């Protein structure tokens, strides 16, 4: 069962290329039973080369060309010769230009490329789209393409992977683009998996000790975490056979409620290759850290606030949810833990299944799932990835909406959007939707 990846815009095309690199590297081990590792993300082209089940879309050719040649140069895998679509001129950081102009204009061509890739799969597990929310093409065309995918494949799982921009200083209109993207995707996507550049940047700086952090480094971390989720694993229902439907399993365990679709990821351990030799990790140690990272809303194992505790179970309800927000407790709706490596079947994850971590209305046995694989992932003997539907993204989302709303209050930049057909009314619709999402997550109790 296969996943088709649709990479959109500069960010999506760069992150996607890194992701396939990691998966290919990891999949070379050929230890996953039934070859589900490579079959899931690759097929063999007519000359037998490993070819990514990916579609590359951008409104300018530079990044696509770069990603394609980088893949070909790896000597291990490549992109399909005709699996891309690009134009000459970008969307100029304007969501409206991507969504209202580029998207509809090239709909047929883009759908064709995706269809070809889908038809190559015996069974489509679903589509993963990768894009940033800040720019114009990834966000605008990406939203439009997601809409088309939803129409064309109504029964397929669609996971949108979004890269959120640095909270300051990437693109001035990034908050508008983000608000428009998120509000639209919320109605289309099955799950919205988010990586924040700020959090990933901190991982690069403090855990991986990278001095001069480049976009490649940031994308590398994102790819590592994504692959940690998407590589084959044994689910509780799969009876010792590697799950063939990772996207279905993922959304079924995390995002069944239509108002809660935001997923965050954290991984442990993440260390620089140079210090690997001095690091010893045990399952109890890793899981203890991961649990505290989750409840204290730490994005990495450094600087965890160990004072934060889960509230007593009996005090549920919205009121207590708010008061515990103040103490730094991060409440979860649902969590998915993925463990990979040595002695994985002896790992006990009870700490993450405590009722106190979850809402009063979804019992923790339904809210918490574990996938396991005895195959070590990447360079780590033991590693854990936690995909979380929790209040983690509440604060960055709230900041995003606040800044956009401030700008909107002064009607700044609105003319740039209206000229492509996005009206003030559309903005208000989007704000309403996201305020609703913020309210839902705030009241998670």
């Amino acid at each position, binding site marked *: 069962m296969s996943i088709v990846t649709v990479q959109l815009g500069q960010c999506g095309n760069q992150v996607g290329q890194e992701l396939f690199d990691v998966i290919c590297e990891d999949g070379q081990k050929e230890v996953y039973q039934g070859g589900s590792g490579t079959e899931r993300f690759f097929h063999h082209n007519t000359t037998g080369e490993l070819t990514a089940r990916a579609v590359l879309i951008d409104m300018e050719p530079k990044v696509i060309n770069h990603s394609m040649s980088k893949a070909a140069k790896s000597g291990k895998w490549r992109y399909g010769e005709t699996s891309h679509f690009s134009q000459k001129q970008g969307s100029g950081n304007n969501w409206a230009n991507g969504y209202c102009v580029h998207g509809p204009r090239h709909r047929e061509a883009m759908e064709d490329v995706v269809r070809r890739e889908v038809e190559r799969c015996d069974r489509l597990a679903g589509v993963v789209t990768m894009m940033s929310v800040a720019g114009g093409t990834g966000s605008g065309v990406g939203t439009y393409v997601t809409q088309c995918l939803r129409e064309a494949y109504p029964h397929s799982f669609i996971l949108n992977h979004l890269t959120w921009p640095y909270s300051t200083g990437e693109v*001035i209109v990034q908050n508008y683009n983000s608000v428009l993207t998120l509000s639209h995707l919320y109605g289309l996507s099955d799950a919205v998996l988010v990586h924040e550049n700020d959090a990933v940047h901190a991982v690069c700086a403090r855990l991986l000790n990278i001095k001069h952090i480049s976009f490649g480094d940031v994308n590398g971390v994102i790819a590592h975490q994504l692959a940690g989720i998407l590589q084959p694993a044994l689910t509780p229902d799969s009876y010792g056979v590697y799950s063939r439907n990772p996207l279905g399993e993922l959304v079924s365990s995390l995002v069944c409620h239509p108002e809660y679709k935001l997923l965050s990821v954290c991984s442990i351990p993440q260390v620089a290759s140079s210090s690997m030799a001095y690091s010893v990790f045990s399952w109890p140690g890793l899981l203890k850290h991961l649990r505290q990272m989750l409840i204290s809303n730490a994005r990495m194992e450094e600087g965890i606030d160990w004072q934060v505790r889960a509230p007593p179970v009996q005090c549920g309800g919205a009121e207590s949810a708010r008061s515990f927000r103040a103490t730094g407790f991060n409440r979860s709706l649902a969590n998915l833990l993925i463990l990979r490596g040595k002695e994985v079947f002896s790992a006990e994850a009870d700490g993450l299944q405590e009722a106190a971590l979850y809402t009063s209305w979804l019992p923790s046995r339904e809210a918490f799932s574990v996938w396991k694989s005895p195959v070590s992932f990447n360079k780590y003997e033991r590693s854990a990835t936690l995909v979380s539907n929790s209040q983690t993204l509440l604060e960055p989302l709230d900041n995003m909406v606040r800044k956009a709303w401030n700008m909107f209050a*002064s009607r700044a930049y609105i003319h740039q959007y209206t000229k492509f057909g996005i009206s003030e009314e559309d903005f208000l619709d989007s704000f309403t939707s996201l305020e609703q999402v913020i309210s839902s997550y705030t009241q998670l109790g």
Partner: protein
Amino acid sequence: MTQSIVVQVGQCGNQVGCRFWDLALREHAHVNKEGVYDEALGSFFRNVDSRSSGAGTCDIGGRIHRLKARAVLVDMEEGVVNQIVQGPLRDVFDTTQLLTDVSGSGNNWAVGHMTYGSAYGEQIVEKVRRAAEHCDCLQCFFLIHSMGGGTGSGLGTRVLGLLKDEFPGVCRIVTSVYPSEEDDVVTSPYNSVLAMRELTEHADCVLPVENQSLVDILTKIRLMSGPRIKTDSSLASGGPGGRTEKPFDSMNNIIANLLLNITSSARFEGCLNMDLNEISMNLVPFPRLHYLVPSLTPLYSLADCHIPPRRLDQMFSDAFSKDHQLMRTDPRRSLYLACALMGRGNLQLSDLRRNIHRLCSVPPVGHAHSLLALSNNTCVKGSFVALRGRYTRLYRKKEDGMEVGLFSQAAESLSSLIEEYDGLDRTSSSSSPSLDAPRLKMAA
């Protein structure tokens, strides 16, 4: 890859444009060792093989035959353009790209705008159209002109309107050189105010450059370094025609450097892609307020290698200082509506994380890195108020026969622009910076 066309109008416009082409060629020669016509070159140059038939334009990836600037040169007198086509840059321009008259506009905006505009408008559009046909994907027009004279100011802004009508989807970035207070052209306040209205209405963004700030910068350089001027630097490259340096050449070189930096990310690859239309998208929150104050760093060491280069961190504060601005107003006392930083050279994401918007990996010739800041800052209002003052003083002594309607409309346009900036300043001073707009509160 997209392409841009430079339209240079009037004496000043052509001189600045000429410096730009010279520096751009040097820069590409420095980077492009293979002699291959690549996309970077293609963004501003055509590659023409005179031996082949037809248009003779060669595709990307072939050998460089003869580079032709994607430019249209317009002047209503012959002097400057003649110098250009006889000088070292003669091969870069075809006669078909030139349009001149002999009699000049007599420092009269109306002559340039109305008389010549009507007489030559169609021809100019035709020349632009031909240049556009040579483009694979035309993205941007760079108009270079001055505000004080007759041709650049009058005909230049007429051309701007024509470009908007004929190529509505193509971004229009205008570099406008504003006259000094002591400008020897008496009518310069009139011309400037009349031109301002056109810029406010028809440009996507305007990069205003004050003559006086250029003079200040050069004076400072002279003070810092004595009489010697670094001859190899990009700022002080030889003047047109290879003659001894003329007083305006250094000033024009500064403006040319500004254009060089703006276009660098369009001309070279960087780790972050940059679309020229992203400039107006990000920096113009309100449609009329599209005047972006440029500042450039390094600036002083551009001219003299003996001035020690600034550290990277200093460059960032420099970029926000009055001394490195090409307008004489002080940005720090006013409201930043938006600001973009365009870095070039070996700048790392981590170095620039909080500050940088666009990175281009090719450094300017002779320097490891450089930084260009474009600020949409209400401080620009100061220059406009001063301009309005000079205009008003002159208008009191007005002569007969002037088209009063045109003048009052232009003055009104300027006043309302100033009022818009004022309004923004007022609200920003009345509200604390930490204030947020009230948010929707939802019932639980």
